[in-house]
């Protein structure tokens, strides 16, 4: 099973708190290595909280646990950090800014 989602990345309180503990700390890793999905999509795809899914873009792929989040259907959210960034392309369209928000990812069950 594979389905396209729109991915956005961004700041969370847990990510901010974790970075002070150290980028190699468990707190930071737990805060950044996850993906949020709305409960409707989770129910439709029979995905449970904590279940590992694979996300794939042209740049790379990651496997992360799912957490319920306040999102519209068809959208995923990953806190900013090294896991999310593996999926981000270096293309900046002449601005210096990569597409950290709004990129299409394929989500697969593992």
């Amino acid at each position, binding site marked *: 099973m594979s389905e396209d989602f729109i991915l956005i990345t961004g700041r969370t309180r847990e990510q901010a708190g974790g970075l002070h503990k150290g980028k190699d700390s468990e707190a930071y890793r737990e805060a950044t290595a996850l993906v949020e999905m709305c409960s409707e999509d989770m129910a439709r795809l029979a995905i449970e909280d904590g279940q590992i899914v694979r996300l794939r873009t042209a740049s790379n792929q990651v496997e992360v646990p799912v957490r319920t989040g306040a999102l519209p259907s068809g959208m995923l959210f990953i806190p900013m950090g*090294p896991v999310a960034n593996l999926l*981000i392309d270096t293309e900046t369209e002449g601005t*210096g800014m*990569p597409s*950290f*928000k709004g990129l299409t990812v394929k989500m697969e069950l593992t």
Partner: protein
Amino acid sequence: MKTIVENVTCTFCGCLCDDIIVEVEDSRIVRVRRVCANGRGIFVDYDPTPRRPTIAGREVDWHEAIVEAAMILDRADSPLIYGLSSTAVEAQRKAVELADRLGAVIDTTSSVCHGPTGLAMQAVGEPSCTLGEVRNRADLLLFWGCNPAASHLRHFRRYSIMSKGTLTPKGRRDRTVFVIDVRPTASAKVADHFLQLKPDSDFEVLTSLRAIIKGEKIEVEKVGGVPTATLRDLAERMKNCRYGVVFMGMGLTMSRARDHNVRELFNLVCELNQFARFSVMPMRGHGNVAGADQVLTWQSGYPFAVSFARGYPQYGPGEFSAVDMLARREADAALILASDPVAHFPGAASEQLKQIPTIILDPMTNLTTQGAQVVFPTACYGVDATGTSYRMDNVAIRLRPVLPTGRPTDEDVLNQVIEAVKQC
């Protein structure tokens, strides 16, 4: 003996809250009050114990590390200096001086946060104000593509939604608040109105608002997923408010159209000034990223992505911005100042940074320090060093240390690197 230091500034984000109370005992911070959850770690997780610099993970004395850094930079054909946003203005000036001397490219974290906002400012101008004006005057607040409830935790209470001022004595009850975003963020919960846009539709919604304000008819029922009637209502509120302010964030700069989104917003705000006082303010993330823009602009004429390779400053977002330089493998050495690009750049750019000799100055260890050739553990401005930072509204704030200074500052180290480069 316990010492209580009042009116300390937290340097985590662009709010630069300067009312923090810090209790110090035996040269250690034992308690911090008023600080938010995001900024607390600046004070309680920072260990100010002096540490020696390292070369390839081996502890060395400061002189040896300075000489090694200077040799790496001097040997490089195309050195990149990057970061700057979590250090003080005094160090930022030295970074620009070093770039000028080396003929290096210098870029700041602006390029991956509000770089597109800088491009829009250059195209349109920035109808802006201070946070003091917001607190005292603003009766209509819009938060567009930003989520202060996660990123700037005291913004609502200190400067915007809940703050009380001369013309807003009732605080929250004197203001109307809109949150405009692609998802119902925590910030949306405190708004009077939440407009949920379809992803990548900001530009068309902004253009439609400009059209409505100019008296044009919008013939479709919805724009970007928002009913046109709702946009007409918003436009009327904007035209009839006393003092409106739009706070804008990465939702505009990081999604499709980037600087075009911001340019359209700035145009909208400019045009609203025909009807009411209206301003826009970028929600700056790092504590002194606004200062990095200021310093680079007053030193070179440009806010980020500047090359000194030809002996004079050239501006080139997309060409001299760090992600592009690394993606094209054009940088053959890097000096990172108070930043962690390995954690925050796209994977391929992070990997390339690991392939070139890198020097880093930072009070903390991070993912970039782990792979750097030379690491300088410097003092933390605002905790054990004094300096100057710019708040998100470009008001300069003097940072006072709360602990005795035991480490060299970024400015000290950069000064020594500049002198060592002269000797190469």
